[in-house]
């Protein structure tokens, strides 16, 4: 590792340490806490585990028990913040994997692109506030790392663990299978290896957890997420509709069929991999796929943005989008989010009735903005695929 990379890592570490200790300070002296509400849920669940009980005794704990196990040292050490250090560690390891997976000619560009994760204040805030997304990001990128180095069994195992951790990485199964199948050597056999390993890891960990915690594990970690109706305000375009539908007797079909547009777009973008099945194109596609998944999700909060931010450096490494267009896209993403946050603040903290039209239109603009941005990404990826195809022909 050269000096510039070491410096980047030290900078990333220093920022995280700074945010971590600032968080402890804010928690102690400010009314509004720095620590994420969910972290207290994890910590309480870990407390039950520490006392030999089920983490599901903690209301609203809807994750794998493994996450609560990770935080059991909080209670051995009697220091609530220990778990955050673990999340920061996973966050840095994710940065290391991004650096490793990035394929760009210029050293400087590589450092700048990996800084999008390592020095990203949003990423740093999320892990130092005690959000567990960094663990999932690490598992996903580790799976992709093993895919790149053709360790298909290990890749499958980590993909399976990632799906066990949170269901959504299951959407990566098809692009990964197509990528592996279209490699020059071992196509179908390697698909089989990845598939069986992923299935074994997913089924094995889930069965293990089921053996210990029974149906409450399945109910909370899986079934709840399939049937949940998030009626409270969030960025999702479905929010107002689901609020109405959860309360009114004349429910329409969207509450049950909200997954359809999401599935159509998430699966619909996969053919973009057919023309160019390179590893770099796979990473770009996963970025677009995750972006689509989050855009069309029934519930959407800021932490979900992390799901696609891990792939952003890989996407930008190959993009042909001009700086001007990129700025417009960023402005739309940030601007529409800002408008939503303003009305969300009025509702949440001022108790103002801004449901309609303000908050509704704000959700809609954020959604439509994201759809337009997604369209730009799709166009861009197609241009890249076509160029790559032409290159091959030549």
């Amino acid at each position: 590792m050269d000096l510039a990379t070491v410096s980047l890592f030290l900078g990333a570490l220093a920022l995280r340490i700074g945010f971590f200790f600032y968080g402890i300070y804010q928690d102690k002296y400010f009314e509004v806490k720095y620590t994420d509400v969910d972290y207290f849920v994890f910590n309480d669940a870990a407390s039950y585990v520490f006392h030999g009980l089920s983490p599901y005794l903690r209301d609203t704990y809807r994750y794998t028990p493994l996450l609560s196990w990770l935080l059991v040292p909080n209670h051995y050490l009697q220091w609530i913040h220990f778990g955050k250090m673990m999340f920061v560690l996973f966050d840095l390891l994710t940065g290391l994997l991004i650096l490793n997976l990035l394929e760009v000619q210029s050293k400087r560009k590589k450092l700048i692109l990996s800084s999008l994760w390592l020095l990203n204040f949003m990423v740093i805030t999320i892990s130092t506030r005690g959000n567990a997304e960094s663990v999932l990001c690490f598992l996903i990128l580790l799976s992709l790392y093993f895919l790149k180095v053709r360790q298909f069994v290990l890749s499958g195992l980590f993909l399976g663990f990632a799906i066990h951790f949170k269901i959504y990485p299951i959407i990566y199964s098809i692009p990964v299978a197509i990528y592996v199948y279209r490699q020059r050597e071992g196509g179908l056999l390697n698909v089989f290896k990845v598939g069986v390993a992923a299935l074994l890891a997913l089924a094995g960990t889930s069965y293990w957890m089921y053996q210990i915690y029974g149906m409450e594990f399945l109910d909370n970690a899986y079934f709840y997420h399939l049937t949940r109706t998030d009626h409270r305000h969030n960025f999702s375009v479905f929010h107002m509709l689901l609020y109405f539908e959860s309360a009114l007797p004349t429910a329409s079909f969207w509450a049950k069929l909200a997954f359809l547009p999401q599935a159509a777009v998430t699966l619909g973008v996969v053919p973009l991999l057919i023309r160019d099945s390179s590893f770099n194109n796979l990473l770009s596609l996963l970025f677009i796929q995750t972006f689509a998944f989050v855009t069309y999700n029934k519930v959407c909060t800021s932490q979900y943005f992390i799901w696609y931010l891990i792939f952003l450096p890989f996407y930008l490494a190959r993009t042909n989008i001009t700086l001007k267009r990129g700025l417009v896209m960023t402005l739309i993403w940030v601007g529409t989010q800002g408008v939503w946050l303003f009305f969300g603040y009025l509702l949440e903290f001022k108790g103002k009735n801004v449901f309609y039209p303000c908050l509704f239109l704000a959700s809609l603009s954020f959604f439509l903005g994201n759809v337009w941005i997604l369209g730009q990404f799709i166009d861009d990826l197609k241009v890249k695929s076509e160029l790559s195809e032409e290159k091959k022909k030549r």
Partner: protein
Amino acid sequence: MSISGGNKTRVTVLFKDAEDLQRNSVNAQDSIIIKGRGQLVQRRTTSELPHDENKSFGTVRITWKSPDSSGVSVIAPPLSSGLNIYVSGSSKQIPGAVHSAKYDLLHSDEFSDALVRQFLPKEFNPTELMLKDRDYDIIMDDKISMNEYYMIKSDSNETLKYEDGYGKLEVGMFFAEPSDHLDVNLNGLRCTWSSTGQIDKCHKTYLFYQRAHTESTNSNTIVEHLEPIGLHPTIRVDLRGEAPSENCEHYMYLAAPAGLFIDKFQSAPVFIAGADDLEMPEYKIDNGTWGFESLFSLKPGQLNDIKLHARYVTPQPWGNSKLIEYNPIIFQACDTGNMEVQNSPFYTRSLGFESFFTNDTVFKHFHSATLSVSVPAANTNDFQAVWFVTSMCLVLSVAYLLIKVFTRQR
């Protein structure tokens, strides 16, 4: 109000002082007339339960606190606001009730005849109750005892005389003599009526007892909401004027509608019963439970903040907001080791927040306030527009993206 034969009626009038008693009460042959000067009256009627009454509850206590309630006094217990129905020993599930360790509790901000009739004998007619300016405390176990509390207003006279259905009538007129903190010395006279409706005899009477409830001398309101309230109101209880003392603890008893909830992992109540789900909207609370009941331990000498959260409420035809009101009860509870405090001649310790404390506990009540939270509700008239626009956006956006994927780049 009578229920059946074998009644006993006792009226107690609490005057401000000896002069008030002498000047403003006139004894006639068959009645006593009291000139109104804000005297507090307790009317207690005790009756046997009708023989055909099919009892499916152990004890039922029904309390009603009017908007003009006079509050705690030496002859009146503290009551929670609105209508409260406490039921213990119930042989069946009571729909919508909060099930706590001691009793099932139903609550309504408004008086509900239908609700009350579910628990009282059919002879009882709740429409006769004067809800605007009188408090009621009705206890039914082996007998039924109805206590009515009200003030005699300055511009009116109260005539106390024998009426049909009173059974044995006794009237006590007292004023409180200065006494120590818990001791109550009531001085006055007691009159009884003969069965012919004439005053039989009046005796000078001196009552001495100890009471379980006192009011703090600090008349400042110590409870408020922190601003901004929003969907996450914080109750601030200012106990900076209170010092810790041995055998005493400060508490807040909070019963509130299901539109609000407490995150028990965040606020650590001593107990919480009822609607304690952390995610459900108000309209999906299990069994339609009206709300929750909770008790919080407070620290004297400092500000105490308790965080509440608002649930989403049912969309309404014209949107606006739903106003949710609640009255926290702030008190200091002290162990005395003295069981006499429960033997008040005017008030029997029964179901309510007291039942969570030992029988030797005395309570000092602080001046509280009615707090309100305005929870925005979506407008049902907007549903069609929301549905149409969202559906169009979803369908067209999917088409737009799929067309982008499957058409050749120019």
